[in-house]
């Protein structure tokens, strides 16, 4: 195994990552009143949370890291179904995590 990366090079990488993250997060906020998107686009951005989160979750559930797994025996898919079932009658996030993890763990034990 290689030595863990350290030293000035790593410090530069971390500061660079921090600055690039800060730049994306503050982009339009820092522009404030000087630069704004078309009003219709700003209205459309009300759908930004649900769309972005779906785009994060779909591959995280259906891709194992090496390949796609669309099978109904995919434990992550079963876990998400467990969480979704809970969400049908409650918004409580703790319950959603618990039921999702329970379904996921049972699926891994039984199918794995």
């Amino acid at each position: 195994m290689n030595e863990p990366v350290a030293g000035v090079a790593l410090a530069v990488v971390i500061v660079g990552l921090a600055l690039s993250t800060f730049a994306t997060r503050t982009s339009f906020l820092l522009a404030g009143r000087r630069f704004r998107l078309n009003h219709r686009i700003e209205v459309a951005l009300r759908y930004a949370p649900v769309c972005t989160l779906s785009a994060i979750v779909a591959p995280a559930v259906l891709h194992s890291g090496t390949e796609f797994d669309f099978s109904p025996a995919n434990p992550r898919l079963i876990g998400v179904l467990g969480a979704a079932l809970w969400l049908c009658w409650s918004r409580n996030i703790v319950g959603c995590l618990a039921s999702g993890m329970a379904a996921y763990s049972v699926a891994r034990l039984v199918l794995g």
Partner: protein
Amino acid sequence: MGVDGQHRQLVSGASERRTAFRAGQRAILQSLPGTAAWGLICGVAMVKGGLATPWAIAMSLLVYAASAQLAALPLIIAGAPLWLIIATGFVTNLRFVIYSAALRPYFAAEPVGKRALAGFFMTDFTFTLFMRSAQEGSLPARHRDAWFAGVCATNWVTWQACSIVGIVASAYVPTQWGLEFTGTLALVALIGPALNVRPAVVGALVSAVVALLAHSLPYRLGLFVAAIAGIVAATLADSRTPAPPREAEAAQ
């Protein structure tokens, strides 16, 4: 108004701000277990991925963006060129540009320092909570900045505490339980309640499909492309006359 009156007004303004701050803390409370578990796992992953403890802590505190940290980590360990690492982090974070544009009208009247802070502390969770509360009308009428500060401070402290515990105690955190899946489930818990209108369902489906199709794009570009596609689809599916927050209404 006499000096006493002015003083009383200042005091009551400060106490209103404290109330708004606490309301923000209560609003984020529910999502903290997911944040805590995911922070712990992210901390463990950074050390197991090859970062030494102090560097992992520095990265967690300065970058505060789990997906960018985890995307950059293998490149750092492999000794990839600086520009490639930064570019990967940047593209992974492109969704924050969209979030920033969505938050802009609500914070446009605030001083530049507050806008910078709001940006630094904005995450998937704090942003989603803000937008949901704005649409449901549950944001306080005044002192929204204090409310968001309460949300962000609580989320930040929880994340950093758990991430640092994960970094320091990485050898003792069991990885075979699949705890990292709680991060995905916490996002599912944010998506679920948002699917109460048809355009949101259309947007979510289109985003998910495009994200799968575009999964092989480099530097996680697929995420950004999918988000844009979903937002466009949701807007096309939305036949209602938009009732947006005009700047004058959004600003206090």
